[in-house]
């Protein structure tokens, strides 16, 4: 196994990880601040991708497409928070799961009604297309490098927002004791709408960024949502830092597991059987990781309460 392949796979793992982080950050914020399990987070990812594809199709501009994705997902997030989610904060988790699952179905059918069942076209901007040669002779797609950079920039921005701004103080206070900050005169329902819209915008951004290299289609958000839940459970529910570390761990485990496990089995098995066993085990790898982390730290890596 060559070093070049290994480095390329580590980059792939990082890129996958930071995109998962964009999803998981919103999910963990919403759970941390409002105690809400939002299954419809994957739908917001899809909304972002469709908005980007639609705007890129009309204007041809990727920057406008990204702006549209952020705006559409944030707007959709704010609307469902005000119309539906707001009624669920006091409700048990099962009610939240049922209601947000219903939202998934509504969003999926609504999107199909608007855009049809065929995948949409969203392409990488010309400036970022094609490979770039890294030191050491590694060829790597420029766009994926940009994704890593954007993901890290967003992570830094979120850290700054929560640690250094007034809004961040309120968000952290809301995580700890929502009655108390309401009593101190913070408009808690506006704070909730804001946090929800912020989380939605991050999901929409991820959808648009990933949509350019994958296919933009109905139901694209749900597989990512499952991984995002794994990420926040590993990282500790409610922790942005945990979401970041968890996302990178999951991204790297998934990518490197797919590479090494089949190779490992090939050492002592027939190639056909090794490929299949290795592939099967690789797809389980992140869940095994989650299990191990929970055995070691039941609240997740950076969690304060038991998950």
């Amino acid at each position, binding site marked *: 196994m*060559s070093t*070049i*392949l290994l480095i*390329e*796979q580590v980059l*792939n793992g990082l*890129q*996958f990880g930071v995109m998962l982080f964009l999803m998981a950050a919103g999910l963990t914020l919403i759970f941390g601040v409002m105690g809400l399990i939002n299954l419809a987070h994957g739908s917001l990812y899809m909304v972002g991708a469709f908005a980007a594809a639609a705007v890129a199709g009309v204007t041809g501009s990727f920057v406008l497409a990204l702006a549209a994705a952020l705006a559409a997902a944030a707007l959709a997030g704010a609307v469902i928070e005000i119309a539906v989610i707001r009624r669920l904060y006091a409700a048990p988790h099962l009610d939240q799961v049922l209601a947000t699952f219903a939202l998934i179905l509504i969003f*999926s059918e609504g999107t*199909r009604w608007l855009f049809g*069942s*065929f*995948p*949409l*076209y969203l*392409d*990488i901007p010309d400036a970022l*297309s*094609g*490979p770039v040669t890294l030191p050491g002779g590694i*060829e790597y*797609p420029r*766009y*994926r490098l940009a994704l890593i950079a954007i993901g890290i920039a967003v992570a830094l921005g979120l850290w700054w927002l929560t640690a250094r701004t007034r809004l961040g103080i309120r968000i952290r206070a809301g995580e700890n004791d929502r009655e108390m900050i309401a009593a101190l005169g913070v408009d808690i329902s506006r704070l909730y709408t804001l946090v929800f819209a912020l989380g939605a915008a991050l999901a929409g951004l991820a959808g648009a960024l*990933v949509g*350019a*290299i*994958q*296919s*933009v*289609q*109905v*139901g*694209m958000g749900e*597989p990512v949502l499952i991984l995002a839940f794994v990420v926040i459970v590993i990282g500790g529910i409610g922790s942005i830092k945990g979401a970041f570390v968890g996302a990178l761990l999951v991204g790297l485990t998934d*990518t490197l597991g*797919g*590479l090494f496990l*089949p190779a490992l089995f090939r050492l002592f098995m027939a*190639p*056909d059987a090794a*490929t*299949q066993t290795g*592939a*099967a085990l690789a*797809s389980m790898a992140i869940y095994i990781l989650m299990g191990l982390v929970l055995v070691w730290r039941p609240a997740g890596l950076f969690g304060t309460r038991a998950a």
Partner: protein
Amino acid sequence: MKTWIATLAALGLTAGAALADGHGGLKVGMITTLSGGGAGLGLDVRDGFLLAVKQAGRDDIEVVVEDDQRKPDIAVQLADKMIQSEKVDVLTGIIWSNLAMAVVPSATAQGKFYLSPNAGPSALAGKGCHPNYFNVAWQNDNLHEAAGGYATSAGYKNSFILAPNYPAGKDALTGYKRMFGGDIAAEIYTDLGQTDYASEIAQIRASGADSVFFFLPGGMGISFLKQYADSGVDIPVVGPAFSFDQGILKAVGEAALGVVNTSQWSKDIDNAANAAFVESFQAEYGRLPSLYASQGFDTANLMISAFDVAHPAEDPDAFREALRKAEFDSVRGDFSFASNQHPIQDIYAREVVQEGDVITNRIVGVALENHGNAYVDDCKM
């Protein structure tokens, strides 16, 4: 008053049912994928099928369409419902081989006919073949065998091959290897529904292969082709038509230009039935038909040709015999059934080209002529 209406409605229902059963009408249950990642495939099969029924002007054929969401458990429930309560005579529509494996054996065991417009798993062509099961599209291996044959004739010596980990994926790699004369650099099974192929592409880059064969139907192919085009890897790609149908080409764009793919159907096959089909499909639905649409269309026309001879519930033997004769105008031209009731047909090599604004396929040659399948001898009927 209310009771009256209810009674009338109930009478109406039973009368309708009696019409479907007793007066010689044909009831078709179509279970296909209309939502999620594979929805484009199911829609095309459905639209092609319904277009044929409409063109035949047959009011005595009723088609019940249900969405299986690409989930085997839902497909099984729908099949039970259609057989038990809807009392359909013929089942059709399934796209995915894992769903076909879950539905077809029990449907045929209950005496129903199943006409497959797409999925053709090897298990149902060989040991699991059944007199009431017909595949109108292809046996799963077929297009991949053609791809292997094409790759050999194109002079490739060392292929990197990948497919999703499900029955049709395994059939695909088996089919390619059966006809490919060169070596296999590596063989990879991906997850069904996987969207990111960065890891696989990195392995392709490092493999030293001179060609890549991939079978990734639906949205999977879109992701792979876009990412492959952007990766800077320039090893030529061959594949079956499933990754180059009209729905996919629209989403992939120029990244697919020049790729050779194999198909039993193409919109430029030169015969009257095909020309009429392509034109009427576009007029009806406002888009170009895909190979899936052509398969749905042929399936319906085959069924109608046999229904003209006998009703499947009244005289199943005559209906079956008529199906075997395959006396209908296939849009593929020559079409007949092998003894295991899978097609014998030409398989073409096509190239992805740009025609004006539209990216589409053009035939560049015949990859395999009058091609049957490798499982005929395993089928004991």
